């Protein structure tokens, strides 16, 4: 499993390195931290025109197969882009739209709808979101829908219920909605402007937003059906797991940024006549942060390789929950300890550390936090089935 990266041909490795470098160059230039800072709390929380630049770079279609006019790259390549943007705390919903939503669509079977949606995503015109999460109940993630049901009516099918924690929370063009149907799970495409859709935007710690979306008897027809039954579960679970891994890529980038800032501060901040990084107690705590970062990095490497290989769906889910757990816990630890090691300055809004801290808070919670993913891991180990 882990040795695949050895067998990546040199050309692909070189290409990936070049992509990582150019993505980092682009991100640093086009998305300085001042941009992220300025967009906090704005109407949509991100910049639609910047999305256009991502499309110009070819990144909105990076993962999408060439058959759908995309670039057919792997998760290794996508990770390079995701990481570079995360380093700059870019607020655009790259993982929610271009991994999670886009991969659900790609994994499903409705040819026409699929073709149309993916084509719009590639050119940067469509920003989709997945609306799947319902009222919190306990410390489990529950990938099955219950509150939202579809009922056949005279004129077609009706969608009713509420979804939470939908990202992006605003300026999103349509939703992939998970719904409960007689034959299990079903996946539907609902444009954001459909009648009966009510989006309530909720501000998040990092200045972006998520939304709670109500579907009040939204009328659907079969052309909006993406998948049904087992096929829906398989398509959705796979995309969910892929989104977990790519969110972990973001969390690792944030960890690295926080640790770097903290180390720089420890090296230069002088108290009691010497750099505070010379104090052994602080050194050892910094080392513990390094260890968590490197554990994240090591597991993440394996996880990305796994996504890019043919693998057992349960194995993928196990790996996805495992890396999301490590990346989230390490992200929060880095966030708390970075502030502590900085002291008061680390807690001020004008210092950039807070940008990373707040984003880490958001991403460690999104799609299920560490504890929830450890429980999913335990359940999957016991059940050894891919269905949840």
């Amino acid at each position, binding site marked *: 499993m882990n040795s695949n990266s050895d067998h990546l041909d040199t050309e692909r490795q070189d290409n990936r390195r070049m992509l990582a470098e150019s993505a980092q160059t682009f991100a640093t230039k086009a998305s300085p931290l001042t941009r992220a800072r300025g967009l906090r709390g704005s109407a949509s929380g991100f910049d639609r025109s910047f999305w256009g630049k991502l499309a110009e770079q070819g990144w909105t279609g990076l993962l999408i197969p060439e058959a759908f006019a995309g670039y057919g790259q792997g998760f290794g390549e996508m990770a390079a882009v995701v990481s570079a943007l995360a380093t700059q705390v870019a607020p655009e919903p790259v993982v929610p739209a271009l991994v999670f939503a886009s991969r659900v669509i790609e994994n499903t079977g409705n040819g026409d709808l699929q073709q149309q949606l993916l084509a719009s995503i590639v050119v940067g015109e469509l920003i989709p979101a997945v609306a799947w999460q319902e009222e919190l109940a306990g410390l489990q993630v529950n990938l099955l829908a219950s509150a939202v049901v579809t009922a056949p009516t005279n004129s077609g099918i009706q969608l009713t219920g509420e979804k939470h924690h939908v990202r992006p929370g605003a300026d999103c063009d349509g939703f992939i909605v998970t719904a409960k149907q007689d034959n299990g799970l079903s996946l539907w495409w609902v444009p954001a402007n459909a009648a009966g859709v009510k989006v309530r935007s909720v501000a998040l710690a990092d200045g972006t937003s998520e939304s709670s979306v109500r579907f009040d008897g939204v009328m659907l027809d079969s052309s909006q059906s993406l998948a049904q039954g087992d096929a829906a579960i398989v398509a959705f679970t796979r995309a969910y797991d892929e989104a977990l891994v790519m969110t972990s890529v973001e969390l690792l980038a944030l960890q690295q940024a926080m640790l770097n800032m903290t180390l720089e501060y420890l090296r230069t901040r002088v108290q009691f006549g010497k750099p505070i990084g010379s104090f052994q107690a602080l050194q050892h705590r910094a080392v513990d942060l390094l260890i968590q970062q490197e554990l994240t990095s090591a597991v993440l490497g394996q996880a990305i390789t796994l996504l890019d290989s043919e693998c057992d769906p349960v194995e993928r889910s196990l790996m996805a929950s495992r890396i999301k757990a490590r990346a989230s816990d390490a992200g929060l630890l880095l966030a708390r300890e970075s*502030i502590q090691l900085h002291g008061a300055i680390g807690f001020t809004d004008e210092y950039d550390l807070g940008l990373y801290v707040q984003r880490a808070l958001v991403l460690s919670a999104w799609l299920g936090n560490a504890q929830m993913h450890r429980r999913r891991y335990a359940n999957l180990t016991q059940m050894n089935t891919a269905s949840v």
Partner: protein
Amino acid sequence: MTTTTNQTINQTTDWNALDTEAFRLMVRAFFEQNYPAELRYPKTRLRWAEIKGWYMTLSNKGWVAPSWPQAHGGMGLSPEKLIAFIEEQERWGVGRAPDMGITMIGPLLIQYGSKEQQQKYLPKIIQGENIWCQGYSEPNAGSDLASLRTDAVEDGDDFIINGQKTWTTLAQDATHIFFLARTDKTVKKQEGISFLLADFTTPGITVRPIRNIAGHEEFCEVFFENVRVPKANLVGGLNQGWGIAKALLGFERIFLGSPKQSQYALSRVEAAAQALGLFGDQGFVDRYTQLQLDVADLSALYVRFVEQVKRGEKLGPDVSMLKVWAAETFSRLANLLVEITGGSGAVAGDIEVNGKKIDVLTSFYNARPATIYGGSSEIQRNILAASVLQLRS
């Protein structure tokens, strides 16, 4: 302001003659009847505009300075009574006013100030006319306070002040500042520091609020640019500032280790867990119970130090352990709250969990300064290692 008459009356009441329990009940009843309900258990420090009414209520009652001698308009409470007074404040969720005048500069002037300083400043603190803030920390003097650089140069009857203070709590609401400045650069760093007072209307002083990551402005920077401060504003002798500032570390330090913040966070975890139905989840219950006992045991440790104060004994450096445990227990509770609220753990402001409103991130944010301000956990551990465990660096 027609406070004088009331004060004169109250100044003669011998509160310490009352039974502590009777005193406690009297205070409790007053708080319950008079403290504004909407200000109970404030999530962040209250601004002067919000809490002024209550300050004046206390002032009129003659209760605004419980620790001061009656001769200066205080209640003259014994440590035991004072602790009861503060415990009742905490119990009812009474917010802290900008209280540097009452808790810091007042007692200091009473002990070290000249008659003139006492007469000039103390009544106006009691009357709520002067609001004080504390200017100790500087950008390069945080944990290492003695390395402060703000400069006070003698010039005739004045000092001319240049420099910058930071992390000055609620300076934007203050009328006056007491601060440390360097008056002699030729001696060891603790020995060249003086303690000064300044009116914020003096030309050359600028206050700039600092926004924190929770979006609040509790702290400020204070800039001094060629500020003339009369020598009459020097407290306790030239170059004596360090000793005076240290002398202020009285038994009030135990309140830094009060269990109230943890108890409040525990109640938030409990409320969220009830709403989420987590008390049937053994995994949650295990962790909740552990923290519940951490808080209970913190209370036991707190009581031990409180008893010490009540017996009239001085607090030693070991009281630092209380602050370490209180702040870190609070922080662990804040982590648990973020964890159990799952996807809602990153929502700004109140979240609704099955119909119950809970502000998750307030505890998370408040837990950050808890381990930094008032002597960081690291500084407290240094103190404990050196002064209690006799481990020398």
